[in-house]
């Protein structure tokens, strides 16, 4: 922490919240990490609450791990990146996994959505939460030998924010928060972010949760395959598009393990690119590869049963946003009643069982759910209730039944989800017509007016898949505010907007909790989108593979991974 006074005050505040019973210890640790508390500082907070100082960042595989073994090549299998893996523009799983092997972020997310410093050593906000100062790690060099300095961070941020080009993904997380020229190098190891408005969740947006924000050298020119300069534990060695990428270990990597041993343990990595999920599963089972960073639940039952494999489950925060477009009929005139009617038709536990092997968190159409984001209030549950659905339908003026169209891409389990919704809506008198299109078609639009033509934004009802986000506010900012470009629901609730602004500009946890409850109620009442579940993630690997870090399975931090001789 840069300011001892701040640390003392905010720390005291957190401890008070816990002692008053307004916060759990787990919630406190997450918040403390966002505000840049070090592990020791957080530990002393815990002690002040009278708790023990158990580690909160345990991953599912952390317990009972054998001692690290040096050497070996870890073979990963997953989909090929859709394009070349340029960190500025990647948006798919293959790209993210590749990039995170040779590049690093200022901060990394833990599985419980707390933060751990990587290239940043510490960070701290000012009192109004609109200036954040980051202290950078010293003694880090890029794999081309140049030292890592504040100028590289500034260059990375400006590159991402460039209005001519830049990164769609990064800009979406910084919309209205961070603008070009908002990042400044105070000295070689200090970076200052001056925000356009107070933002209590800002550190998340410069973590690997914002996967485009990987730190590149200031000399980067967009030619990642020829010039893969990063600070990561591995160096990109060979890249054959759509087939394979190989990495060798970075001998000058800054990272050391707790015992002071040089990381990484492994000699290198191979990433084998296979699109088809069942083909991936078969390769893993046959022993040809060691780890499938992201395992899809459908059809993965065989992996769970395989005695040679271990599947780690991460309670995830990914969602399938089922949006009711408020500018289109029947939702425009039907309003909240109609949206709720559909929401009460869903048998959420049944969907969870069919699509996610009963392993996801159930959702109740709001982002603020304690079961998903520990710093949120609990959300009232929504069980299947056809009587209520019919009543709501009648209230909305559709007593005689309703016909709606659901637009869905042939991608992941979305078609199956659409069919379950279709079938579960039937008894309430709601006929769902499924309009399935290809993935490209679903996300295609005219050049002149993309957001006025692309199906995922303009169709009356859609299913849109979202990867994980570390905090409810980040989801809401991206899709529930009227000026959010990715708003498939086009929801425009003034009360929600003003409450949300308040929520994101305060560091007072008691107030945040209160505002979160209000936001949650507003979202549930209007139900502009249905969130039947927050999807858990899985990573399947051979039993001798240890210590691949998340968060979740989208990211795949292999810097401290190792393989024992089985």
């Amino acid at each position: 922490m840069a300011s001892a006074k701040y640390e003392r005050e905010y720390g005291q505040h957190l401890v008070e919240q816990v002692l008053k019973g307004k916060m759990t210890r787990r919630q406190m640790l997450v918040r403390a990490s966002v505000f840049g508390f070090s592990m020791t500082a957080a530990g002393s907070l815990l002690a002040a609450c009278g708790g023990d100082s158990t580690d909160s960042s345990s991953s599912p595989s952390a317990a009972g791990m054998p001692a690290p073994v040096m050497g070996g090549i870890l073979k990963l299998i997953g989909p090929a990146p859709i394009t070349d893996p340029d960190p500025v523009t990647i948006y798919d799983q293959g790209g993210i996994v590749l990039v995170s092997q040779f590049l690093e972020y200022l901060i990394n997310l833990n599985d419980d959505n707390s933060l751990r410093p990587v290239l940043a050593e510490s960070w701290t906000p000012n009192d109004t939460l609109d200036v954040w100062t980051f202290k950078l790690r010293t003694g880090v060099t890029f794999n081309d030998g140049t030292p890592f300095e504040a100028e590289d961070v500034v260059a990375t941020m400006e590159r991402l924010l460039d209005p001519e080009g830049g990164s769609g993904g990064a800009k979406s997380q910084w919309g209205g928060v961070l603008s070009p020229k908002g990042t400044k190098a105070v000295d070689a190891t200090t970076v200052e972010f001056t925000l356009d408005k107070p933002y209590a969740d800002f550190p998340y947006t410069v973590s690997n949760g914002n996967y485009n924000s990987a730190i590149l050298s200031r000399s980067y020119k967009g030619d990642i395959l020829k010039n893969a300069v990063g600070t990561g534990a591995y160096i990109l060695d060979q890249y054959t598009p759509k087939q394979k990428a190989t990495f060798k270990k970075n001998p000058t990597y800054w990272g050391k393990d707790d015992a002071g041993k040089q990381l990484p343990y492994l000699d290198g990595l191979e990433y084998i690119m296979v699109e088809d999920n069942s083909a991936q599963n078969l390769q893993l089972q046959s022993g040809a590869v060691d780890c499938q960073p992201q395992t899809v639940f459908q059809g993965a039952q065989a992996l769970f049963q395989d005695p040679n494999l271990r599947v780690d489950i991460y309670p995830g925060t990914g969602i399938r946003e089922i949006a009711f477009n408020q500018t289109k009929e029947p939702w425009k005139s039907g309003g909240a009643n109609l949206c709720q009617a559909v929401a009460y038709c869903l048998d959420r536990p049944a969907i969870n069982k069919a699509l996610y092997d009963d392993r996801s968190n159930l959702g109740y159409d709001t982002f603020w759910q304690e079961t998903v984001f520990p710093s949120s209030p609990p959300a009232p549950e929504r069980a299947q209730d056809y009587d209520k659905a019919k009543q709501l339908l009648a209230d909305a003026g559709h007593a005689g039944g309703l016909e709606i169209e659901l637009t869905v891409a042939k991608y992941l389990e979305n078609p199956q989800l659409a069919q379950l919704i279709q079938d579960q809506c039937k008894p309430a008198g709601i006929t769902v017509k499924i309009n399935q299109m290809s993935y490209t078609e679903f996300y295609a639009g005219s050049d002149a007016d993309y957001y006025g033509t692309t199906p995922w934004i303009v169709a009356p009802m859609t299913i849109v898949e979202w990867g994980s986000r570390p905090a409810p506010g980040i989801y809401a900012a991206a899709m529930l505010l009227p000026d959010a470009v990715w708003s498939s629901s086009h929801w425009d609730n003034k009360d929600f907007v003003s409450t949300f602004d308040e929520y994101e500009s305060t560091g007072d946890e008691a107030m945040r909790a209160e505002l979160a409850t209000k936001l949650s109620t507003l979202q549930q009442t209007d139900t502009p989108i249905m969130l039947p579940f927050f999807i858990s993630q899985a990573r399947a690997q051979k039993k001798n593979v240890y210590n691949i870090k998340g968060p979740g399975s989208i990211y795949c931090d292999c810097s401290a991974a190792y393989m024992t001789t089985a």
Partner: protein
Amino acid sequence: MLRLIGRRLLLMVPTLILASILIFLLAEVLPGNVGRSILGQYATPEDVAALNRELGADRPLVVRYVAWAGNFVTGDWGESPVQKVPVRPYVMAALWNSLILAGFALILIVPTSIVLGVFSGLRRDSALDRVITVSTLSMTVIPEFVSGVVLLYVFAVWLKWLPVTALAPEGAPFYERLYYLILPAIPLMFLELGYIARMARVGTVQVLSMPYIRTAVLKGVPRSRVVFGHVLRNAMVPTVTVIGSQVGWLIGGLVVVETLFSYPGIGKVMVESALNHDVPVLEASVLMVAVVYMFANLVADIVVALLNPRIRKGG
């Protein structure tokens, strides 16, 4: 003969030009554009438009076609805007992979189908004949994703006799590469079996009805000698003619098998580049397949000419 070959080669040119125009149109009618493919659905329209401008993808269709064709003819296949790699090695590597797989499948197909065809021809109209004919023809029309899935399950997962991937580890000797190709080659073999076996059967039946064969049999020449000496050789002629027309299809139709067995071949490259609007890669891969198809046909014609006894007699 040479004149004939020359004419056939000349005819390829307009065919290829027409094909390349069609492919450009294909990339045009598919939803989306190259900028959107590169930046993904979350990019703003402004960013996409800027990238398309940078890539020159916003120019009129005709201008883009002429620019591309001009470079292509001079041997400059360009760089893939999506994968950021030079097109020629990328496409040629995939084509080579596919040719190995297709070639291996053909090596399996030809003897199998000829043996089956000759057998069924020798026992014309018997139960065996019908079983062979119907079952091979049915294999031909059972989609390769059905046979492929079942084979994968039985031989790779359940019995563990064969590897689940089609691509051998790097640096593996050639025979090991073939070992990896057995499983994917079988669905391809099924697809061709019926047709080629049928040709061999027709050839056999035809030869058996020739007076000199009948005479030979009546004279007491051993049946095996009749079969190997005359029937087999003559049955080859119609068989070879059809193989030519199958090669292009084998390569082009590999998409499903390549997907199923995660094999980096030309079929996958074509479909992916079409969906991503990666026009330079799409053009190059489709045209290469077309060229292979047409050459295979030409070669088959020439081989038939050489095999045919009459032309040998004539000189």
